[in-house]
Every structure is written in structure tokens, then in C-alpha cells.
């Protein structure tokens, strides 16, 4: 700033000199000189430019430059004139208009490699303006004061605009991920099994690539964790210090993969509550650094801090570089494991044959669209009821079934309970016919026979089925469990009790059955619809990878562009460039 002020009087009060300078400048703008300029500029810093201008620039900077290195960026930025960006929020962004011909004169790497440079983050050009981000409002304000003060070599005053704005959007496509991966492998010490990701957002390698990848962004952090899981699960030490992290949730997925991780360095981040460590529960950490996080100041004394850490990570023996007294634990031998789940249980082959035959016929008819034929399966005095449950208030519940749901925890009125319990085969079959069309997934079925008497048998079928319909919503996957009580009739049996439970499929079921819809022989929704569904799913996944947006926004973007991938990508790029995509789109 002082430079700016001192240089102006110099021009204003000494008319002769100013004129000379300006004339000289104009003269320098012929083609020959311009080539020169570029040539020298490519070689390095401002010194070369000084040579090229034969001292002109020196006159602008007076002799102060050599004394005050801090102003170097301004010198280099002296091509800036104007900026036309409109984002506002919490990060200062500076910008100036660069005559495009000057870009090469000032290679990006010069600016970015300079240690004292303020052009820390994502320096780039938008149209004629050079746009970059600075971290602090003070820095931005300092830059702003130079608006109209610095004279460019062409004699124009350079305009500088500053705006508060959110950190730049960080999209993740395959290419970016690949570069992040390379950068991570450079930072991995194989001998020590140490991955040093400290100050990752200022990584010079990534900066050279023009990539801004702050771990404080959920999508970036998750991607980095994913790369760790895939490539270095043997990791023993992880340094994440100085990354402005305010949440540790993405690390939770390391618990099951990185069993060897013993040391975690989280110093100098923005973790504000000790509860963030809950995401690390299960890691057998011995060493932890938390110093330099706001959460450390919330403890009255050292002992409560230590016990809060140990409560979550009981094996910690070194905290913030200090040895802790060894923990005394209990030996409860809690190594009990759940018995492995097995497939269907039948007490005998006869029973198995009988039930399998029944179910095959039953579900072919049930999924056929005409359930009237099920009449034969039911006893005259059969009973049927169904009940549903919603696992959490967040998910869309089985709305199509809810009005028939006889969940006794909710339906308390006994008349209503009676009405929801269908009695007699006609009532049962007509209730079944009213239910939405379905497509069961026979490969998901398990049958458990609970009780067999010559006169009565009960068994439970569970598995998944899909709704049938054109919209994605209708084709939702449901999990079910169906308890039957049957009595012998002729060579087979007839159903006397039928109780059906329906709920949203669990995540693992959705994962397992999403891409293998086996169309039933009767009511196949048609191969073309099925194929395009899978294709759409794959497109959404690819789009998510490329744009870094979450599933719903990716699907929305594709849907609005008639599932034309290239068109969608173009639209995304346009919107993204103009910062018109809400930040929720990148939250996963």
C-alpha cells in the first residue's frame, strides 16, 4: 500500500517524468517488445521483466521494492484491471482484469510458487479477469485499497475488486482424483507407513495442477479416505494437521479397514467438540494429537481432557506428544460372535418340497397382476393382515401400504384392529388384490419352518420385492417377512393364517439386489425399461464421480437433460462456473 501511495505523487507531481514513463510504456507495446516480454517472463520472476522494460518498471516501484519483499505480488499483479465475479460470502476473493496477452508474461507458476505470495488458492482467469482467493478478510481489504492506485505498464490504473464468498467449489472428477492420488503417494512414506497430509490444501503439486482440494470439504475428505482404504490399508500413521477440519465423519470408514493405524495427528484443525472423536471409535490408536483445536480449550483441566479422549479411544498412550499413564482395563473376554446366518431351514425334504412348490405357485400368481387365483390357496376361514414399519422419520415409508397396516403399536382401537384383520378367503383375496403390483426376488427368499404337526404347520418367508410401475418411486425395493400357518388339504395344504410385514429394504439389500432384477415369467415390465433403468443408474454414478455432486442432484441434472450425458455435463459446467449450484448438491 505504501508503495502505491508513494508512487502516485511521483507521477502526479513530476509531469515530465510521468510523461516519459507513459510514452516509453506505449512504445514498449509494439509487437517486438511484447514477444521479448513474453520470452523473459517465461524464464522467471519480475527481475526479467525489469530488464525488458529497461527500467520503466523500476520507476514505478521506486527503490522500495528491494527493501520490502512483501509487495512482490502487487508488482506481478500489475496487469490486473478489473474483475467481474459476483459471489459473496465468507472468503475474500480478489481479482483483476488481465490483458490476456500478459498472461504468458506472468506465468502462473511464478505467482503460485512464491512463498510469500498471497495468491494462495485457486488462481485462474475468468474471461479477462484474473480471479484468486485469499484466506483472510484483512488480506482482501489490503488488496482492495490498491484499487486504482497501481499503474499498469500500459498506463491504465489497475482495478481490484474484493468480495466475500464461500471457498471455491471443488468438483471431483476422475482426473482430479487421479491427481490427488499421485499427490498422496508422493506424501506417503512407505518405510514408516506414514501418510503426511498436513496442510493438504496448500500442496504445491496440486496447486501447479490448478487443483484446490481442501480436506475441510466433505467430498474431498471422503475421496481421500476412500483412496487410503483402497491403496494403503496397512497405514500406521496419518498426519492431517493444519487442514481446517471441523468434522471427522469421513474417517469412520477407516475403522473397519485400517486395523494397523496407531497414530493420528489432528493438530491445528477446527474441531470444536470432543464428540467428533466418536467417529474414530474402534480404531486402536496409541498416539493422538489434538493440540490446536478449539475443543482442547473446552476442558477445565488436563485430567478431564485425557479421560474424555480415553473414553472414546481407550488404547491411547500418547496424547499431544506426552506419555499418559497406561490404562487399566477389564478382561471380560468379549469375543462372542454372532452365529453365521444360514439359508432356509426345513425339517425334512418332504416338507421342503411341499413348501417350495406352494411358494413357487403362490408368488407367480401373486406377482401376475391377477391375484384372484389365490383363492385356492386359502382356507374358508383364513385370516390375513399386514403391518409396516418406517425405520426412521427421514426415509419415505411404505405409504402405499400404510392405510392397511395393522401395527398394534400404533393401532389401538379394537374395532379398527378387527377391520384390518381380513377374515374368510374372499375377504383375504380381495384385500390382496387391492395391494400394489409387486415383483418378488426369488433369490432373496429364505424359508424357516418353525413348527410341524400332521395337522398344522407354520413357516416364515422373508426376502425382498420390488414395486411395479413406470416411475422410479414405484419400483422401490421392499423387504418383507410373511408368516403362514397352514393345514393339510388334499395333497397340499391351505393357508389359515397369513401375516405380512413390509418395510423399506435395508441398505445392504438395496446394494445386493439393485442391479439384478429378475423379471418373472408372467409380468415382466419389459426388457427395454429394465435396461434403461440400469443404464440410468450407471449414468448417475458416473455423473456423481465426475461432478462431485450427490446422487439426487446428479439424477436431477440428468433427468432434466433427457439423460443426455454430454448435455448434462455441459449444463453442469456452465452452472458451476457461474456458481449457480447450491452447496447442498455437493453434500453426500
Amino acid at each position, binding site marked *: 500500500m505504501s508503495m502505491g501511495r508513494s508512487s502516485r505523487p511521483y507521477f502526479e507531481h513530476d509531469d515530465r517524468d510521468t510523461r516519459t514513463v507513459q510514452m516509453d510504456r506505449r512504445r514498449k507495446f509494439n509487437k517486438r517488445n511484447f514477444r521479448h516480454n513474453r520470452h523473459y517472463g517465461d524464464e522467471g520472476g519480475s527481475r526479467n521483466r525489469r530488464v525488458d522494460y529497461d527500467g520503466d518498471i523500476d520507476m514505478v516501484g521506486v527503490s522500495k521494492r528491494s527493501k520490502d519483499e512483501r509487495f512482490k505480488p502487487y508488482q506481478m499483479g500489475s496487469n490486473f484491471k478489473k474483475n467481474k465475479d459476483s459471489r459473496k460470502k465468507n472468503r475474500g476473493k480478489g481479482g483483476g482484469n488481465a490483458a490476456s496477452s500478459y498472461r504468458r508474461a506472468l506465468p502462473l507458476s511464478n505467482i503460485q510458487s512464491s512463498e510469500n505470495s498471497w495468491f494462495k488458492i485457486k488462481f485462474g482467469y475468468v474471461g479477462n479477469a484474473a480471479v484468486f482467493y485469499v484466506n483472510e478478510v484483512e488480506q482482501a481489504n489490503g488488496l482492495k485499497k490498491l484499487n486504482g492506485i497501481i499503474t499498469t505498464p500500459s498506463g491504465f490504473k489497475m482495478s481490484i475488486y474484493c468480495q466475500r464468498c464461500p471457498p471455491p467449489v471443488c468438483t471431483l472428477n476422475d482426473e482430479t482424483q487421479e491427481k490427488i492420488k499421485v499427490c498422496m503417494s508422493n506424501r506417503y512414506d512407505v518405510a514408516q507407513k506414514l501418510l503426511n497430509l498436513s496442510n493438504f490444501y496448500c500442496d504445491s503439486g496440486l496447486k501447479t495442477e490448478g487443483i484446490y482440494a481442501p480436506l475441510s470439504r466433505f467430498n474431498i475428505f471422503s475421496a481421500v479416505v476412500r483412496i487410503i482404504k483402497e491403496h494403503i490399508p496397512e497405514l500406521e500413521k496419518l498426519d492431517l494437521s493444519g487442514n481446517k477440519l471441523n468434522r471427522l465423519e469421513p474417517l469412520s470408514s477407516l475403522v473397519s479397514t485400517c486395523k494397523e493405524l496407531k497414530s493420528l495427528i489432528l493438530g491445528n484443525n477446527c474441531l470444536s467438540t470432543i464428540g467428533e472423536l466418536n467417529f474414530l471409535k474402534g480404531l486402536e490408536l496409541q498416539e493422538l494429537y489434538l493440540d490446536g483445536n478449539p475443543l482442547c480449550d473446552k476442558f477445565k483441566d488436563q485430567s478431564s481432557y485425557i479421560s474424555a479422549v480415553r473414553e472414546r479411544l481407550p488404547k491411547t498412550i500418547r496424547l499431544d506428544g506426552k506419555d499418559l499413564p497406561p490404562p487399566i482395563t477389564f478382561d471380560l473376554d468379549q469375543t462372542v460372535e454372532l452365529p453365521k446366518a444360514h439359508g432356509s431351514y426345513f425339517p425334512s425334504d418332504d416338507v421342503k418340497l411341499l413348501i417350495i412348490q406352494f411358494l413357487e405357485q403362490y408368488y407367480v400368481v401373486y406377482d401376475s397382476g391377477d391375484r384372484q387365483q389365490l383363492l385356492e390357496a386359502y382356507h374358508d376361514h383364513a385370516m390375513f393382515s*399386514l*403391518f409396516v414399519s418406517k425405520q426412521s422419520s427421514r426415509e419415505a415409508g411404505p405409504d402405499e401400504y400404510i392405510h392397511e397396516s395393522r401395527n398394534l*403399536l400404533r393401532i389401538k382401537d379394537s374395532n379398527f384392529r*378387527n377391520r384390518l384383520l381380513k377374515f374368510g378367503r374372499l375377504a383375504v383375496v380381495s384385500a390382496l388384490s387391492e395391494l400394489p403390483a409387486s415383483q418378488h426376488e426369488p433369490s432373496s427368499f429364505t424359508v*424357516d419352518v418353525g413348527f410341524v404337526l400332521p395337522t398344522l404347520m407354520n413357516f416364515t418367508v422373508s426376502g425382498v420385492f420390488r414395486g411395479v410401475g413406470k416411475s422410479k418411486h414405484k419400483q422401490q425395493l421392499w423387504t418383507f417377512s410373511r408368516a403362514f400357518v397352514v393345514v393339510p388339504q388334499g395333497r397340499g395344504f391351505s393357508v389359515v393364517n397369513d401375516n405380512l410385514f413390509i418395510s423399506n429394504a435395508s441398505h445392504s439389500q438395496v*446394494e445386493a439386489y439393485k442391479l439384478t432384477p429378475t423379471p418373472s415369467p408372467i409380468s415382466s415390465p419389459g426388457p427395454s425399461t429394465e435396461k434403461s433403468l440400469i443404464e440410468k443408474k450407471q449414468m448417475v454414478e458416473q455423473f456423481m464421480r465426475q461432478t462431485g455432486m450427490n446422487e439426487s442432484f446428479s439424477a436431477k441434472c440428468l433427468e432434466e437433460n433427457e439423460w443426455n450425458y454430454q448435455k448434462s455435463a455441459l449444463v453442469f459446467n456452465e452452472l458451476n462456473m457461474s456458481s449457480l449450484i447450491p452447496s447442498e448438491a455437493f453434500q453426500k
Partner: protein
Amino acid sequence: MAASVIVDRKTQISQACQSGEEFARIYYEKFDKQRHLISNLYEQSGNVVWNGNYVTGRENIGKFFQNLPASESDLLSLDAQPILDEFVQGQTTILVHAAGNIKFSGKNRCKFSESFLLTAKQGNDGSVWRVVSDTFRFHEPLPT
């Protein structure tokens, strides 16, 4: 006669509902907190098919459940139906079907459903319900 049959059935239905509700409440409470008592709820010759694992007899069932890790269950949904007398020769029997989430230590919380066949037996203090069959499943794909 027809009228009395209907009344009878309605009584049976509401009895099934009440008993089912009470049973489910007691069952999951004992399962989580007093596992050692759970086998008392089973008939001497009762059966359990737990995620495909077949266990028969009260004593074995008790042992099997005691060996499962600690649990925390969350009952979300429940239904119950009577089995009509004509099918069980007057041996009062109900079908109880429960569903919710269960968290076993060492495993993530997951969806489950469980269906029971309960039959009324003469106990020390009048009639008691005993489980004759119990089938339990996680709502998850089978491990490969």
C-alpha cells in the same frame, strides 16, 4: 349360533392382540436385559430358527441365546392373529409377528423380524403363554 361364533372370534382376536403386545414387550426386554430368563418363555419342546440356525428344546434355546452377544433391540412394529380353535383342536394358539431394529455388540444395527407361535399352557399360576416356535431373520442378504 352364527352370532355366537362371530362374538367368539372377535374375543379371540382382541385376546391375541393384547397377549401379542404384552408378549413382545416382555420378550425384548428380557432378551436385552435378562437373557438368562428368556428360555422360561419357551415350551419344553419349543423350536427356534435363528437366522437359519435351528435349535430345539428349552434348555438348548436358553444356552443358544445366552451365547449371543449383548443386544439392544428397538421394536417398531407388531401384529398378532389368533389361530382358530378348529385348526388347533381347542388348544388356544396365537401368531405374533414383530419387527424393528436390533444392535448386537460387534455388529451394526440392523433390521429384523421375528414370528412366534404361542400356545396357552397350564402353569403354576393358571394359564401361561409358551413359545412353541420362533423364527428370526435379519433383513440383510445372506453372507456369501
